[in-house]
């Protein structure tokens, strides 16, 4: 192996490569392309993963939205089509009795799922916006990006404070430009509320958008006389809990409580966010795996192309090899040179590909940076993957180099010299 590190060996190799620029260029294009695709695909998959991670940041992804509907079967002396309204006490019941539930956030809302949106008035300006009665814990389900002021807190709940947090659109529509809304009063359904915060739209919110108003749950109850009824609840499971099973258990419990037939699928509506999120993560994982497989296969194809071209050039160089052997080159030296040429070309192409891939990812990143609703962030490739790609290239490069190398030494010098 000593010959790998001697200057002379490399001079021979560089000589052979430099004097055959065209062949060298064609040879490395395959591997260059392969590794470029590998890097870009990996980076893109990673960027997508990062993008989704970022979008779901500060979000209880392992959660279910649950609301009451109308029964689909008669049960317990009740007719079908009985409306079910969930109550506040259900949240504690679920939180305490169902295993694996982290917390439950009840919500009340006006202006969502049909129903007229309440009128919100500030002086001469007014508009209809969705109004949510919330506990502070809702922030744990989907973190509100607070731009100014603060979000709801427990004291607001305890003291039934008439305060509100408004969305950015509400701000621009009800207030003058440059006007500070914090501390000002606006009228919601004819009740004055003090603005304590402004939130920014979060792309992963389902309902809020940027045109909603949050008020304390307890205040909502008084203003809209909703009693103990809630519009829906969000049930968050622990991160590694099987959320589908939690959903089943919660529904079973609620069916018992509201005398609903155990097989009635219509009484409670739900959206299993955990399941959806699982599908997205699964999709990203699948994407990464596909990228890996495609990338490696492309590298493989590129390396095979190198072997192929080397094989052709060995045939072209039969005479040169014959001369070298007549001058005293041992078969080992010839073989070593061809294999080293193969590995060197592979690595050269690989390095070029990795660099170009990195630059491409940078470009992609800067292009997509300002696209808010495109889940793509920091497309990177881990050093392990690059190391693995290089290792694959060296291994395959030397393996594939063996074929032309063996061919080169199998030609007897006399035959090589006779060839004109």
């Amino acid at each position, binding site marked *: 192996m000593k010959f790998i590190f001697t200057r002379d060996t490399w001079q021979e190799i560089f000589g052979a490569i430099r004097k055959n620029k065209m062949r060298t260029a064609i040879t490395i294009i395959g591997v260059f392309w392969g590794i470029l695709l590998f890097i870009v695909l990996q980076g893109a998959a990673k960027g997508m993963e990062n993008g989704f991670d970022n979008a779901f940041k500060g979000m209880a992804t392992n959660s279910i939205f649950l609301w009451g509907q109308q029964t689909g079967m008669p049960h317990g002396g009740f007719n079908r089509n009985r409306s079910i309204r969930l109550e506040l006490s259900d949240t504690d019941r679920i939180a305490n009795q169902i295993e694996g539930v982290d917390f439950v956030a009840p919500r009340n809302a006006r202006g969502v799922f049909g129903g007229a949106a309440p009128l919100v008035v500030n002086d001469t300006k007014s508009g209809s916006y969705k109004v949510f009665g919330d506990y502070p814990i809702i922030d744990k389900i989907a973190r509100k990006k607070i731009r100014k002021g603060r979000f709801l807190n427990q004291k607001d709940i305890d003291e039934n404070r008439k305060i509100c947090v408004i969305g950015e659109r509400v701000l621009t529509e009800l207030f003058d430009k440059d006007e500070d809304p914090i501390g000002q009063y606006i009228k919601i359904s004819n009740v004055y509320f003090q603005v304590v915060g402004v939130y920014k739209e979060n792309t992963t919110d389902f309902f809020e958008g940027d045109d909603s108003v949050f008020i304390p749950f307890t205040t909502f109850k008084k203003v809209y006389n909703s009693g103990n009824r809630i519009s829906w609840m969000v049930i968050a499971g622990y991160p590694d809990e099987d959320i589908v099973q939690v959903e089943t258990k919660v529904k079973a419990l609620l069916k018992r409580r509201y005398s609903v037939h155990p097989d009635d699928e219509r009484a409670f509506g739900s959206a299993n966010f955990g399941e959806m999120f699982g599908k997205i993560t699964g999709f990203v994982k699948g994407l990464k795996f596909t990228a890996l497989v495609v990338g490696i296969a492309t590298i493989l194809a590129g390396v095979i192309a190198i072997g192929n071209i080397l094989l052709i050039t060995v045939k072209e160089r039969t005479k040169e090899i014959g001369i*070298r052997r007549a001058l005293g080159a*041992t078969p080992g030296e010839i073989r070593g040179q061809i294999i080293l040429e193969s590995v060197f070309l592979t690595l050269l192409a690989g390095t070029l590909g990795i660099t170009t891939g990195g630059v491409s990812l940078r470009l992609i990143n800067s292009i997509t940076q300002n696209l808010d609703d495109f889940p793509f962030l920091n497309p990177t490739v881990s050093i392990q993957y690059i190391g693995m790609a290089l290792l694959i290239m060296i291994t395959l490069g030397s393996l594939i180099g063996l074929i032309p190398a063996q061919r080169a030494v199998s030609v007897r010098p006399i035959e090589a010299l006779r060839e004109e």
Partner: protein
Amino acid sequence: MIQIDELHKSYHMGSNELHVLKGINLDIKEGEFVSIMGSSGSGKSTLLNIIGMLDLADKGSYVLDNVPIKNLSEKKAAVYRNKFLGFIFQSFNLINYKNAAENVALPLYYQGISRKIRKEKSLYYLEKVGLADWAHHLPSELSGGQKQRVAIARALASEPKVLLADEPTGALDTKTSYEVMDFLQSINDEGKTILVVTHEPDIADMTKRIVMLKDGRILEDKKVEQIRASQYV
């Protein structure tokens, strides 16, 4: 220097067997200048290839500088070729992407000689063949005679015991042929053993001994009065 005893060689072409060498006995002393002559098919090239360890004999013995040449592995043959023999070919066989100096240095590279000495030696031998000024030219920039002189310099560079020339003037015009022969004669004058395969009688007359081959046998083996090529140059 070279002792060949009852050497046989045959080639198999399908079901036909072509008996090329039918018992050659040849003894070449150090410092001799021998030409092997014969019509095509007489086996002269085959004999040279066997002497050059580029081909193997079927039967008989071959001793080169007191080393019996038999059952050689490819690796060992390469080492012996490098150490004992210098080749000169009809078609020069220079590596076309290496310049003259690099071509001359190539056998030294395979001897594992350091770069510096390789460079010195290659320049020394190019000087010897009068091509020092052409050291950095590619073969394509040289004339036929110059190419052959580079090839001779290359053959000499490894300081071999025996110089083997296969039709060295076959691709050259008469004038250049004589120039090349002049070189070979001066090298021989310095004591180098040289073996030339040729079918040109005038070239053969410039050596000191002519071995006539016919149908795989030695027809005639005679010492001749050497004609100096310099008188034509």
